[in-house]
């Protein structure tokens, strides 16, 4: 191990995010582009594999553009800059951070840059916005695209002035020849032109140490639309003659429709659709649609189903070994665990569990669909517009190029909006009604018919020498997932296995994926092992940790937190941290337990985070704070309760999410590594929270809690 990078730990693929189909290949006529975009310059970013084939670079004289494009940028003859990317905005603030990347390299103020995002007709194919991939990949690609555009413009100015391009610089939308005191606007250089350019691997980028636009805090580019209510989310979309759709839901999961009587709904003037198990209506108002659905008499049949009380036993007993969709990602072994386990001074075996939890995006799923003949257009909130396009094409048996999916900036996702349920429902109802139809799920529908963060059982066995060296590590995760499953501690003998399971509830990706569960188990277990050998938990971690980046965040957070200070009665301190999605986090929590009521209050949280060169410091803080607060919900009280195919707490009044009064004092330490590539930050920071709180509760009370949520009903002190 180099000590500075995580070469030993490849990123575990997340099986719950691998539903995307094969990339769609664009085959575009450049003349079509300019017809749509107007004159100017078009710069395209080609996927790495295609760059080799396109190495000629420079100005493309050929008729077609390369096929494997992941982003493009257009500068109009009026100087307007438009960037096209399939990534989508749902609160991570990438509309702003990607604008900064382009503004930095192109030397154009960010307010002059328009980002067109997540429109399957206008933007290149993108698998989806998840996995904290936007900053390490799209941000970099757009920097390259913008840099290529800048170099091309400088080249054109140099040709015009018959001078050496090296003597020219770009600034504020102009090419400047300082020596001869002259400048020319980008717009002037592009007047009447139709130029295309492909970026090459050699396009020089501005190093992070010289950043002026990137690397600075920038306010949300369209923030004004959000504080005035002007921004139109998917659920706010309207069309003339639009109807409101609503679906009649089964009485439980996995139910079959036996009989249905829709006469009353018909009489109310609603368009009623019955198609297989689908029963839905479209009506002139959401109120009428709800009344019509309520008037439908449907009989459903289902088999008895599991309750959350039997869940963990079930998961352990219902594995589907060898059915890993990602191939060989199930198992990691090094050294000889069994042998090493027999030779240790202390052997510790513990089981940890996590519950199903709900994303609860404040904007529920919503879609507006409209047909023109065989062509379907859908506006919907999804992290995978191209994936939803595929689902629609499949559902309606039409070619993908007859479907356009647009994603207006959405009221959050957190991994919960990878699918296109409302898109399909709205499109089905619209086809029957022959008018545009909007479907917005109620909160209860969102809680019941979306999908959950997987629940899981994790068994950890460790072998530790009395001096605090961990020599053996065995880790089994049942169902929750493989993201973050590998350990970053230096352990010579390891066996780490993910066991896929037939989940009783519909499950899918969730912010930070299984890294939350795996870090909870690992970092709780590290604490337990430290106490077993009577070592300070920080000292124990550092003794077994070589990775410099991870050590740096633990040390920085410990310093800010004041680790080692004495505590009062009821007070507890704990830590958790790790490496995930290319970021490094250490989280230290101070909690207070009210012995009488059992209430656990998280009082103060210090996070140290490092994700390479920082693109937007204030937005980074915002993401870390948000991760901590969302992580706090899953750590303390969030859990889906279910029985016999029904969700028992599927309302906001019954499912507790963090509120103002739950929020601790948050202190964030940012380590800016300008020498390292920028990575994403939407997910990693949340993984330290649950173990930090669990370890702090142990510190305060001596009670070791091994199930998330930790204290849904307060701490039972006996």
């Amino acid at each position, binding site marked *: 191990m180099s000590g500075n990078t995580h070469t030993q730990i490849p990123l575990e693929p997340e099986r719950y995010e691998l539903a995307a189909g094969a990339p769609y290949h664009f085959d575009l006529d450049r003349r079509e582009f300019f017809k749509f975009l107007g004159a100017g310059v078009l710069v395209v970013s080609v996927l790495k594999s295609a760059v080799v084939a396109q190495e000629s670079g420079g100005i493309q004289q050929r008729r077609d553009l390369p096929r494997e494009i992941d982003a493009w940028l257009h500068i109009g003859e009026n100087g307007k800059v438009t960037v096209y990317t399939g990534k989508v905005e749902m609160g991570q603030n990438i509309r702003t951070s990607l604008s900064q990347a382009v503004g930095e390299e192109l030397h154009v103020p960010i307010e002059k840059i328009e980002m067109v995002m997540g429109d399957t007709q206008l933007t290149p194919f993108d698998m989806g916005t998840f996995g904290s991939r936007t900053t390490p990949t799209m941000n970099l690609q757009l920097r390259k695209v913008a840099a290529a555009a800048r170099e091309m413009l400088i080249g054109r100015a140099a040709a015009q002035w018959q001078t050496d391009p090296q003597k020219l610089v770009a600034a504020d939308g102009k090419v400047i020849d300082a020596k001869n005191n002259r400048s020319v606007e980008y717009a002037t250089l592009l007047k009447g032109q139709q130029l295309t350019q492909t970026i090459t691997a050699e396009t020089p980028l501005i190093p992070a140490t010289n950043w002026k636009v990137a690397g600075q805090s920038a306010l949300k580019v369209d923030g004004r639309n959000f*504080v005035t209510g002007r921004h139109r989310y998917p659920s706010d979309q309207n069309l003339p003659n639009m109807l409101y759709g609503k679906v009649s839901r089964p009485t439980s999961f996995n139910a079959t429709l036996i009989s249905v009587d829709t006469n009353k709904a018909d009489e109310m003037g609603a368009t009623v659709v019955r198609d297989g198990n689908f029963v839905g209506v479209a009506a002139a108002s959401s109120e009428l649609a709800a009344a019509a659905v309520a008037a439908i008499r449907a009989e459903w049949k289902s088999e008895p189903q599991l309750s959350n009380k039997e869940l963990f036993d079930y998961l352990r007993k219902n594995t589907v070994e060898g059915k890993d969709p990602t191939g060989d990602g199930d198992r990691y072994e090094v050294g000889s665990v069994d042998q090493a386990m027999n030779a240790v001074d202390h052997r510790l075996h513990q089981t940890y569990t996590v519950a199903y939890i709900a994303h609860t995006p*404040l904007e529920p799923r919503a879609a507006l669909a409209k047909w023109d003949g065989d062509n379907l257009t859908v506006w919907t909130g999804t992290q995978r517009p191209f994936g939803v396009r595929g689902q629609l094409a499949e559902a309606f048996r039409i070619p993908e190029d007859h479907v356009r999916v647009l994603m207006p900036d959405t009221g959050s996702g957190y991994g919960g909006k990878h699918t296109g349920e409302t898109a399909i429902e709205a499109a089905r109802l619209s086809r029957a009604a022959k008018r545009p139809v909007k479907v917005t799920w109620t909160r209860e529908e969102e809680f019941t018919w979306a999908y959950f963060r997987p629940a899981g059982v994790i068994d950890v066995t460790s072998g530790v020498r009395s001096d605090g060296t961990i020599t053996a590590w065995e880790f089994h995760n049942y169902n929750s997932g493989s993201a973050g499953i590998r350990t970053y501690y230096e352990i010579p003998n390891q066996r780490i296995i993910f066991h896929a399971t037939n989940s009783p509830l519909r499950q899918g990706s969730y912010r930070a994926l299984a890294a939350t569960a795996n870090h909870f188990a690992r970092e709780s277990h590290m604490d337990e092992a430290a106490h077993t050998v009577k070592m300070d938990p920080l000292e124990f971690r550092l003794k077994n940790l070589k990775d410099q980046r991870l050590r740096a965040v633990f040390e920085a957070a410990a310093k800010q937190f004041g680790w080692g200070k004495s505590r009062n009665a009821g007070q507890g301190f704990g830590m958790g941290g790790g490496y995930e999605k290319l970021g490094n986090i250490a989280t230290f929590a101070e909690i207070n337990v009210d012995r009488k009521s059992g209430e656990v209050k998280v009082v103060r949280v210090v996070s140290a985070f490092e994700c390479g060169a920082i693109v937007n410091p204030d937005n980074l803080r915002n993401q870390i704070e948000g991760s901590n607060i969302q992580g706090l919900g899953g750590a303390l009280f969030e859990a889906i309760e279910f029985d016999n195919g029904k969700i028992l707490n599927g309302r*906001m009044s019954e499912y507790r999410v963090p509120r*103002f009064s739950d929020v601790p004092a948050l202190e964030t330490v940012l380590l800016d590594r300008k020498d390292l590539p920028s990575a994403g930050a939407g997910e990693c920071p949340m993984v330290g929270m649950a173990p930090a709180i669990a370890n702090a509760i142990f510190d305060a009370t001596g009670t070791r809690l091994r199930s998330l949520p930790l204290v849904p009903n307060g701490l039972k002190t006996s």
Partner: protein
Amino acid sequence: MSSIPLNVNGKSYTVDADPQTILLSVLREQLDLTGSKYGCGEGQCGACTVLIDGKAQRSCVTKVGTLSQKQVTTIEGLASGDQLHPVQEAFLEAEAMQCGYCTSGMVMSAVALLQRNPTPKESEIVAFMDGNVCRCGAYPRIVGAIQKAAKVATTTAASAGKGAGR
């Protein structure tokens, strides 16, 4: 169905609706005022918050038939022309949002709070705002924005007072 008079953002409307219809649906579907958001439908998340005679109310549980004599203010009616309300300005400056879906309701609740209590303590802000959910967790920034707006409002009031005395 009946004709119901409604005053929203200083404008008089007559809407065709059952008096039992919830205000949020009328605002969004009949008046195309989509700034007020649906979040839970049971008054638990605050995304739909509007002012009714200056008091913060959840429009998702308010029946439109009860409002004939009342003034309704939504997020769309807060700014005067291009001049944002100090609370809106403070939310912008503090970047007190991520996805922004809760922002309308947060701003309206904050406006109601500051009308009632122009200089709230942090604990008072937390207590008053606790019915508004921000799932992205921008809470500390929202508290900061409200404190900022309170400061701006009191400073403006103080300097206005001085000016009048001169």
